[in-house]
């Protein structure tokens, strides 16, 4: 009976994801009709321009949106589990701002190539998360507000540093790149950009999958996890690095995407009424659906494309206000 419910929840979510996927392929400045999509999928002939747009623009873009939605949501869900805090997402703990600073540093001081930005963003995120942990440990109160405060502190420091970098940046190339990166976008994602991050993304997700049961237990207090035989310090560091690797690999291409890691896991938990790895994956599907819809809007709402974080922030910030009320 229960298994059936779980099963149906997954099926419904996957069907919605499929619909969103088709929508994402179709929508844009160059419209691809459902008929054309069916033709391409079944291997029939369509005109060259449609085929080019399908393979080179829409398909890799849509796959990237799905990966980003899934990865950010799964990581968000796992952050929330191991910090035992429903607001502990990469955004709120300052990981995103850390990644942002890392990316800005790479844009100014390093080549600004996708690899340099990616690695630098990942390291920035990692430094931020461990700083956040150190800050929360310093406080007596490990409650929800402490993590939010730690995030604010890290956010302010990184914002200061980013402003400094911007001040010295070349306004033509570097400044624009930094601004654009901090707002996030799926524009210009091609398979050449997508493929290099796949190994890192997969490595992170596979590690999280392998440690799924340990993550479950880490959602208890440290003492309780320890008494159940978990090497808390070691496992937690591996989990944090893996989850941050997933976030880092995504944002190195797309730039910052706010709030998905907060909204989707929470919705997943409300629907499934559980907090296991299955729920993290389910949240991933929800995150992918939300992000596809946001990206479709970003592409079609005005004549020029809107950065994705503008939209996710407008959805996410009110949701955060609602959560604050709920977990007061």
């Amino acid at each position, binding site marked *: 009976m*229960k298994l059936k419910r779980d099963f149906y929840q997954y099926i419904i979510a996957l069907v919605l994801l499929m619909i969103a996927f088709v929508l994402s392929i179709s929508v844009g400045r160059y419209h691809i009709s459902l008929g054309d999509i069916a033709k391409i999928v079944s291997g029939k002939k369509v005109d060259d321009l449609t085929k080019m747009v399908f393979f080179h623009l829409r398909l890799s873009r849509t796959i990237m949106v799905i990966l980003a939605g899934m990865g950010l949501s799964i990581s968000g869900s796992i952050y929330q*589990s191991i910090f*035992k*805090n*429903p607001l502990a997402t990469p955004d709120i703990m300052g990981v995103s701002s850390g990644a942002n600073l890392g990316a800005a540093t790479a844009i100014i001081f390093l080549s600004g190539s996708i690899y340099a930005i990616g690695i630098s963003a990942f390291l920035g995120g990692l430094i931020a998360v461990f700083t956040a942990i150190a800050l929360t440990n310093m406080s007596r109160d490990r409650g929800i507000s402490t993590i939010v405060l730690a995030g604010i502190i890290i956010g302010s420091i990184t914002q200061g540093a980013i402003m400094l970098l911007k001040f010295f940046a070349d306004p033509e190339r570097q400044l624009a790149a930094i601004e654009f990166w901090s707002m996030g976008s799926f524009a210009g994602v091609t398979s050449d950009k997508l493929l290099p991050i796949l190994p890192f993304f997969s490595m992170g997700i596979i590690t999280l999958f*392998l*440690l*799924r*049961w*340990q993550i*479950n*237990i880490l*959602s*208890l*207090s440290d*003492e*309780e996890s*320890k*008494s*159940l*035989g*978990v*090497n808390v310090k070691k*496992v937690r560091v591996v989990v944090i690095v893996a989850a941050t690797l997933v976030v880092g690999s995504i944002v190195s291409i797309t730039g910052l995407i706010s709030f998905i890691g907060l909204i989707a896991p929470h919705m997943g*938990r409300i629907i499934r*009424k*559980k*907090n*296991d790895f299955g729920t993290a994956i389910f949240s991933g599907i929800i995150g992918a659906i939300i992000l596809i819809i946001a990206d479709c809007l970003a592409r079609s709402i005005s004549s020029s494309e809107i950065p994705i974080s503008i939209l996710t922030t407008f959805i996410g910030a009110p949701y955060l206000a609602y959560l604050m009320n709920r977990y007061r």
Partner: protein
Amino acid sequence: MGLLKVQEINAGYDRNLVLKDIGFSMERGTLLGLLGLNGAGKTTLLKVIGGLLSPVKGHVFVEDKDIYTYKEKERAKRISFMPQRHSIVYDTEVLDVVLMGINPYLGVFDSPTSLHKEKAYEALEDVGMEAKYKSNFLHLSEGQRQLAVIARSLLQDSDIMLFDEPDSTLDFNNSHMVLSKIREIVKAKGKSGIITLHDPNMALSYCDTIIVLKDKRIYEHFNVENIDKTFVEDVFSKIYEDIETVHYKNQFFIMRRP
């Protein structure tokens, strides 16, 4: 030779010693009650024995092996610890809470199998909670939660079971229900149980031996079977001051003098 041997323990937090020169040993099939006022070091002692707080000095041996030389998983197979309050934040099914007890027997990349789930269900049967196995843990009453966590300790199946004030959030009926369950398990499965309590009457009713902590040390360590009224009054009046002892149906009860 005892299953558990606690030797000359000094322990505390930062530079503050909370416990001094604590030593005792325990056999299988016995339940030990730790009594003492707030801050007497009951929970600290339990954490030291559970391997959660390294002592400043001294050793804890299980079958002659120092528990601080065990790896986490090996130690968890020998000692389980039930905290004063569970720390489950998110919606979780009762069966999944119990299943966490199987962790010491799993590899780091493993998840519980259906066989483990059956065992978890049996552990719930042992505490009479099988009907709730699909319920949301957070929606249970405090007493039912405690029973579910006891089922988790059962699944963990360690020789030594530690319980930190399992009755602190329970009403009268639930306190007696949980403590008699703990006693029943310790006796039936030949475990060594240590339980911290606030209420001396609960300790006198359910434990085989009692340790009273006072001024960082063991003030008294006695077997409940071999005591008389003067002894009880003498020991407990040192802690609870103005008390009177009543002997009723082969058992001692302590009351505050009106």
